[in-house]
């Protein structure tokens, strides 16, 4: 009796089973989305995005490090010599070609995120006594990347220049990062 009516409804049964299975898979799949998405930055984290910095007390040749979104930002008051060095360069020599003017708003002020683009260490060179690398900018102690006075990668394993965060001059002595 079981085998009598086996043939006819079989395809319909298969279709139903398939649909139920597919829907189950979709259901579980959509249930996973909220779990994964909960690990993305939360709304309050995303909202905390700006930092204001008074730059009046940064002497020529000095660099100030400020925290922005949990990351170090280097604000370098460049000397005339450093500016000249940054401008005097053959773009073909660069792994990540950028002119100095693309990277600064006022040429005596360089603002970059101080995180090596290789594997995320903080390059040295802000304090006297620290190695500045072969190009008078920064040197990353982790794997030996060298950055110049415009924060551009010149040697070592890093793929990119130090990134420039969004910032604006609120006045001659005040900048807002973010």
């Amino acid at each position: 009796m079981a085998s009598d009516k086996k043939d006819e409804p079989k395809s319909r049964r298969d279709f139903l089973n398939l649909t139920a299975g597919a829907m189950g898979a979709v259901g579980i799949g959509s249930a996973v989305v909220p779990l994964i998405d909960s690990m993305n930055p939360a709304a309050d984290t995303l909202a905390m995005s700006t930092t204001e910095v008074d730059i009046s007390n940064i002497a020529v040749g000095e660099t100030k490090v400020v925290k922005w979104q949990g990351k170090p930002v280097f604000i370098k008051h460049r000397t005339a010599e450093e500016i000249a060095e940054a401008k005097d360069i053959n773009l073909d020599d660069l792994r990540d070609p950028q002119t100095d003017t693309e990277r600064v708003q006022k040429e005596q002020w360089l603002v970059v995120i101080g995180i090596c683009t290789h594997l995320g260490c903080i390059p040295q060179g802000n304090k006297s006594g620290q190695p500045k690398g072969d190009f008078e900018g920064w040197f990353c102690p982790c794997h030996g990347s060298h950055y110049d006075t415009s924060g551009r990668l010149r040697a070592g394993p890093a793929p990119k220049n130090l990134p420039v965060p969004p910032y604006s001059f609120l006045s001659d002595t005040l900048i807002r990062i973010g």
Partner: protein
Amino acid sequence: MTASKKPKSDFKNPVVKWVDERLPIFTMMEKEYGAYPTPKNFNYLWNFGAIAMVMLMLMIATGIFLAMNYTPHIDMAFNSVERMTRDVNYGWLLRYLHMNGASFFFIAVYIHIYRGLYYGSYKKPRELLWIFGVLIFLLMMATAFMGYALPWSQMSGWGVNVITNLFSAIPFVGDSIVTWLWGGPAVGNPTLNRFYALHYLLPFVIFAVIFLHVWALHISGSGNPTGIEPKTEKDTVPFHPYYTIKDTFGLGVFMFIFMAVVFYAPLALTHSDHFKQFDSMVTPEHIVPEWYFLPFYAILKSFTSDITIPLTGYMFDNALVFTAKLQGVIAMFGSILILFVLPWLDTSPVRSARYRPLYRISVYLLLLSMIVLGYAGSQPAEGLMLTLSRLGTGYYFMHFIVIVPFLSKHEKTLPVPKSINDSVIQAKGSK
């Protein structure tokens, strides 16, 4: 050749075959969840084991992601929970799933347990299976209680305070035990930290005990509404697809009800004091546990007078006082612990309440007493409510200690069908 000893696998998929020949998990799954012969007369009450399992997995999944946003510190816990509800992506959803998931996990488990009571699922040879089940229930209660503490609300903090204080009823060492539980002179940060650690740990312990529970189940085989064992192949069907599809349907309906609560009445089972931060200086006016603890809470509250045993001059200098507090604590824990010995209290050869007219009445009354206790537990222990709690408590223990052993010996049971297949045919015929 000796190579022929190597286990051969019948699976067609080469990857599955390769794995299976080295570690036969697919063979095992096929045996335990594919071909596994299952009585063909399960009713929908047999869905709730699988549903409870899914609820546990849901609780673990949501819990892990909630933990990623939780700060176990008395000054930050409450706000970190609010932050995850407000700012974390889908945090509100995870929280409401987890909050109400606990309730629905208990609903599934209570139905599962009651089914066991009704159909005598705890009887030989399934005693150990039942004992693992009661153990899971105890672990669940501990886990739920600790989880309730984590938002560090007024209800959390005072719930922790009251329940840990139960242990102070233990003579001589009670107060030291309570201090040890708290990790300080009062409920505080060490308490919250250890509750968090254990709340994260226990679900995995539950998982392990469930493994043993299911293992034991697959040794003895599933019970069924008739309470008689399958005799021939006619009595059983393979687990897949018959019960996989039936469980899937049952799960769909259960999830529908669960989700309706999560999305449209997520706060129906909670309390306004759960949204005030814990204040160790002010106890809320009306403190109640979550609904699933209410019957046991009522048992605790139904003992109000000390019993004094005059032993002066014999063993002790003073009369021995059996405090109301200790009575309540013993009764409350006893009400669960008694389930462990149920297989030896009920020695009736007939399992299912279907064929035990008197046991059936008593087990319904047991359900009624739990509902009455649940209601009384939500009310202040005075007047009518106190009387109801005492009646409910009395009946609860009478059922297990007096009625069940008595009926085991003296009940006139109805004739049991010859086989599962017969009972199915009978039921069909009478429709």
